[in-house]
Structures are given as structure tokens and as C-alpha cells.
């Protein structure tokens, strides 16, 4: 195996900038080894194992795509928030028209709870303590929102439920990204 082949395997599924970083540091390492008279690639170990470890600490290609493609800035994140609230308003309207006026009042707290899920980038809780408080508030909002939606038991409520789960999925991904980047490099949606 050549050093190029080792690096290709070790950088599989990493973001381009992460792969470049690995290429630079392993290249530099190998140059030092050569200068010391050691050209044995085996001393670097299994590139697949190194790749697994790199993927835990450096941005992967899907994560980089998520940052750059879906929520590159504040505005794109809020487009999703507006879409979510519009969804709640449409549901409320549909309930009112279809004679389920008893469900319409639930749209208000559900809308507020959904907005709470999206409010992270606005608050940008930087200190660990603020982040903890924010997570507890957001988690409680999620649970109460779900209870409201499940007890509403109407087909329209599933579209709002999907919206809650969409934010939750983003939150899980954001947690992983937060661990891999220093706080000054956090993209705006990493605060959710």
C-alpha cells in the first residue's frame, strides 16, 4: 500500500476540508518518518480504523453538506420556522372550516411551542449553563407539544408533528456538529 492509498481510505466520507487536513498532517508525518529512515506504511496502522476515528472528530461530508446546503445562514433557518408556523395556521384554518372549532384553540400553544423549537439561533446560548437551560426548555416544549398534538388526534395534526420531528432531527445532527467544531466556528443552526 502506498501513502496515497492509505490517505484515500483514511479520508473516506470526510468533508473536503477535513480530508485536506488529514492529507496534510499524515503527509507531514510520513515525510518526517522518511527523513528518519522509516518508510514502513504499516507503522500508521489500519487506514479503516483511522477513518472511523477521524469521522468521530472531524466533519464528515454529509455534515458539511448540511451546514452549507440546508442552513447556511440565519435567513434560511427562519424560512423553515415561518414554514412551520404557516403549517400550524393552515391546520387551524382547516379545523375551523371542517367544524372542529374545539381544536382551533390548541393551535395557539402548539404554534408557540413550535416557534420555541426554532428560537435557538436567535438566542445563541453560548455558555454551557445557558445551553443547558435552553435544552431543558426546548425538551419540555417538545413533550408538551407532542401531548397536545396526540390528544388533538386529527389527521391535520400529523403534519405539525412531522415539523416537530424535523427540528428534533436537526437538533441531534447539530449536537454532533457542535462537538466537532470550536464554538467560534459553530454554524448558526448549531445553536438549536
Amino acid at each position, binding site marked *: 500500500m502506498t501513502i496515497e492509498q492509505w490517505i484515500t481510505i483514511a479520508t473516506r466520507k470526510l468533508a473536503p476540508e477535513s480530508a485536506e487536513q488529514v492529507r496534510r498532517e499524515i503527509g507531514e508525518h510520513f515525510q518526517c518518518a522518511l527523513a528518519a529512515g522509516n518508510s514502513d506504511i504499516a507503522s500508521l496502522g489500519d487506514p479503516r480504523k483511522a477513518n472511523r476515528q477521524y469521522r*468521530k472528530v472531524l466533519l464528515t461530508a454529509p455534515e458539511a453538506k448540511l451546514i452549507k446546503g440546508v442552513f447556511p445562514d440565519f435567513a434560511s433557518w427562519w424560512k423553515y420556522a415561518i414554514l412551520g408556523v404557516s403549517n400550524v395556521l393552515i391546520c387551524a384554518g382547516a379545523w375551523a372550516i371542517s367544524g372542529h372549532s374545539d381544536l382551533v384553540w390548541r393551535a395557539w400553544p402548539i404554534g408557540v411551542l413550535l416557534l420555541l423549537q426554532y428560537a435557538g439561533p436567535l438566542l445563541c446560548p453560548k455558555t454551557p449553563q445557558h445551553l443547558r437551560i435552553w435544552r431543558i426548555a426546548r425538551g419540555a416544549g417538545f413533550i408538551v407539544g407532542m401531548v397536545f398534538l396526540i390528544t388533538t388526534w386529527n389527521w391535520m395534526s400529523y403534519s405539525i408533528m412531522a415539523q416537530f420531528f424535523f427540528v428534533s432531527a436537526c437538533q441531534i445532527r447539530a449536537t454532533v456538529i457542535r462537538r466537532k467544531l470550536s464554538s467560534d466556528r459553530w454554524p448558526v443552526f448549531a445553536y438549536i
Partner: protein
Amino acid sequence: MNLRGTLPTLILEAIEREPDHGYSIAQRIKERSKRVLDFKEGTLYPALHKLELDGMVASYEEMEKGRTRRYYRITKSGHDQLAKDRQEWQKVSRAVSLILKERGLA
């Protein structure tokens, strides 16, 4: 010999006195353990990145012989962590020695 999970501690120990670059850190660990701890060098950098993310290590680039090299230095929380790890290791080591002595293996 590969002691799983001890690499971060060994890295902190290697750069405790002065900053160093990746290759030299790997060689230092091997030489100081008289080649008993022979880890694979490809796993050194993910461990260094993890330490950097955790704030135990900081890195900077420096020119050396016309080449840019990344140096790693230990931070204040790295020093604190190393002190904790040393205590923990001594405790574990004493406990294992006691068990082995009990069985007449040490």
C-alpha cells in the same frame, strides 16, 4: 502492547514540558516506554484532534527547515486532566498489582 484508552494521557504527558509536532510525539511515547507501548501512528492525530476539541491541547503552525509544521501544546485544563489521569492510573495500577500479588503472579 496496546493499552486501550491511554493514548490521550500519553500524549498529554509527552507534551507536558514543551510543545511538539505529531511525529515527534509518537516517537517520544515509543522511546520513553522502551518500545513496549507500540501504538499505530495513524490513530495519533484523531486523538490529538479530540484533545484539541476538549480544550486540553492547542495547536499552532511553525516553519521548520522550510516546511510548515503543526505543533501541539498542553493547556491549563490539559495539565489538570493529566494530574487527574496520573492519580487514577496509580490507583488502578496499585489495585491490579494487589490482585496479581494475591495470586502469586507479581
